[in-house]
């Protein structure tokens, strides 16, 4: 089998050198078109753009404040199909004790709050609704940035038929440019799985007809929290 040295050596040879350069010049950005998108927009402008495009891509939107967040989440859950709810073990949702607030009439479980690994995944698989908090959100494309880790497993936002993302308004930034810069700033502590998610799972593979809910959640809700 080819070793790393042999493999890289062939590439170096193709590039006309014997040794890999120790420190090449960093990439030179000759334009700044990407940083100019939505540049100078206010927090309110970005929230409006995020909400508007969320609706355009088939996402249900609720607006809330911190005080009314649990009531808004409850309302959003009620609009989803009936069934169990899996809630991310997130600081904000813990502080609000969202899981307890949802318990009336539904089985609710907080991810990784006990039980075996399998039982957590099994619960998420049977859950009708998953609830998580966005790490960041992108106004241009109505995208939420999700970190998956021990407090919010990949299953929480993937296996249920419906998923609700809580989006603190202060976390909405213009576009992917700021989202990627955020990841780079936090590169030393990134979790193994990071996802940018924009709306429900979708396909156009049969005669280019748009269909939602191929593998992942069919219904997505964004709750924008204006004062957080």
């Amino acid at each position, binding site marked *: *089998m*080819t*070793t*790393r040295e*042999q*493999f*890289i050596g*062939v*590439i*170096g040879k*193709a*590039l006309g050198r014997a040794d*890999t350069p120790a420190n*090449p010049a*960093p*990439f030179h950005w*000759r*334009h700044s*078109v*990407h940083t100019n*998108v939505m540049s100078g927009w206010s927090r309110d402008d970005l929230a409006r753009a995020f909400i508007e*495009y969320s609706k355009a891509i088939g996402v249900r939107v609720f607006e809330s404040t911190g005080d009314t967040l649990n009531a808004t989440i409850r309302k959003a859950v009620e609009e989803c199909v009936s069934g169990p709810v899996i809630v991310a073990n997130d600081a904000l949702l813990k502080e609000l004790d969202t899981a307890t607030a949802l318990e009336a009439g539904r089985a609710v479980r907080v991810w990784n709050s006990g039980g075996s690994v399998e039982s*957590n995944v099994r619960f998420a698989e049977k859950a009708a609704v998953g609830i998580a908090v966005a790490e960041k959100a*992108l106004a241009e*494309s109505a*995208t939420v940035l999700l970190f*998956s*880790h*021990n407090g919010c*497993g*990949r*299953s929480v936002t*993937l296996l249920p038929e419906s998923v609700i993302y809580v989006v603190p308004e202060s976390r909405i930034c213009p576009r992917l*440019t700021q*989202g*990627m*810069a955020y*990841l*780079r700033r936090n*590169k030393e502590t*990134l979790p*193994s*799985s*990071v*996802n*940018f998610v*924009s*709306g429900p*799972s979708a*396909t*156009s*593979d*049969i005669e*280019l*007809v748009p269909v939602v*809910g*191929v*593998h*992942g*959640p069919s219904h997505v809700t964004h709750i924008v929290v204006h004062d957080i």
Partner: protein
Amino acid sequence: MGIKTSSLGLKHRIKKNLSDSFMRASIANAQDRINRKRADCYAELGHFEKWRDLAMDIRSHVLDYLDYYLEQFTDSAQKAGAAVHFAKDDREAVELAKTIFLQKKAKKAVKTKSMVTEEIGLNEALEEIGIEILETDLGEYLLQLDGKDKPSHIVIPALHKDRRRIREVLAQKAGYKGDVTPEAMTRFVRGILRDAFLSADVAVSGCNFAVAETGTIALMTNEGNGRFITGIPKTLITFMGMERVVPTFEELDILFSMLARSSVGVRTSVYMSLITGPRGKADLDGPEELHIIIIDNGRSNVLAGSFKDVLRCIRCGTCMLECPAYRHVGGHGYGVLYPGPLGAALVTELAGYEEHKDVTEICSLCGACNDVCPVKIPLVESILEHRRIIAEDKRLAGWMKDAVYSQYGRVIGNSAYYASASRLARLANHAPRIGPLKEWTKARELPKIPAERFRDWFAGRKRKEAGS
């Protein structure tokens, strides 16, 4: 599957695909719709040329320092806990995969759509050792179910199939009893694939991009199978063409932004999954093992040669959606894994002129692809240069073309021959429509050559003027 997807010769492939009226209507519809969406999407974004400059610069920069960035990527991925393997060709790549499957005693695998795994013939190799490998992209799943049919587009693989054919296949092969609507059939497949995700021993993915600074694999999907593949099975094997690297997340922004817009005309894909190593120590889900297999398979030859720019490709499929030749013959007309202008520019480099020289002929050199390529690959110039190499350097154009063009060159390069030939040219009006002329005149009129040459008419006119 490998690079070659058809054993038919060029003429037979073209004839077969030209007579497929559903496929042709479907491709035309896809081109018209997606091209319009893409144009709207870029118009809304603004500064298309500057975005293209950035995307081109990033890809060129990475290729110029590919050895450095692959070293950096490997170190970062290993630091994050991934096992990184290197394969100089398709044979080594499938051997590495087989070894991992055997070590894991795996029997079932799920897979995302990935051109590089098609290129190395992964599915066939795994099936030979008794592994059941299931495609999970809806289009690819439908092709697999339909007797391993071949993709006709690199982003929308089942573009050539209509809903009735799909229903028939689902009914015969998977027991589907529902109606013919895409919604019902998609729902049915969701159930099958959900079970497969949850029971698979190993997941297999491709890699849109790889971030050197962090050792991150970046996958872009709309259906969500990329998230399932990287989220549920305990072992993940990612196959990566060696040129897929970007320096940092910041350059990834530009390429993702262009890929979503260019491939299907949207601001972003539904899912962008960024995987850095296997699951964390305290995580409850995600792969326990991540293997990354980096593949050369001819790419280093391309890097060393005059077609290096083609390696900038981000596999968006835009060039084929703009191509008038692709519009008529579809992906299958090319008989290779990478169709369209990309295929015409790349395939002979990866797999040789001898077997694939005819792919370069499916191009009118109109240049539409050059104008839309998000990384500014000089596709037309590359295809033209391939044709020159085939005719002049490799002498592979065939004796008839060789004879015709060498005679043509002799005539056009000598004034006496040219004068005689141009006087006799009008005899061509009476030439029988046989051989190449028969093919050529099937769809167009042969221009009638006037009895009098222009130069004779012009000289006569001058004489008349002088005499009057």
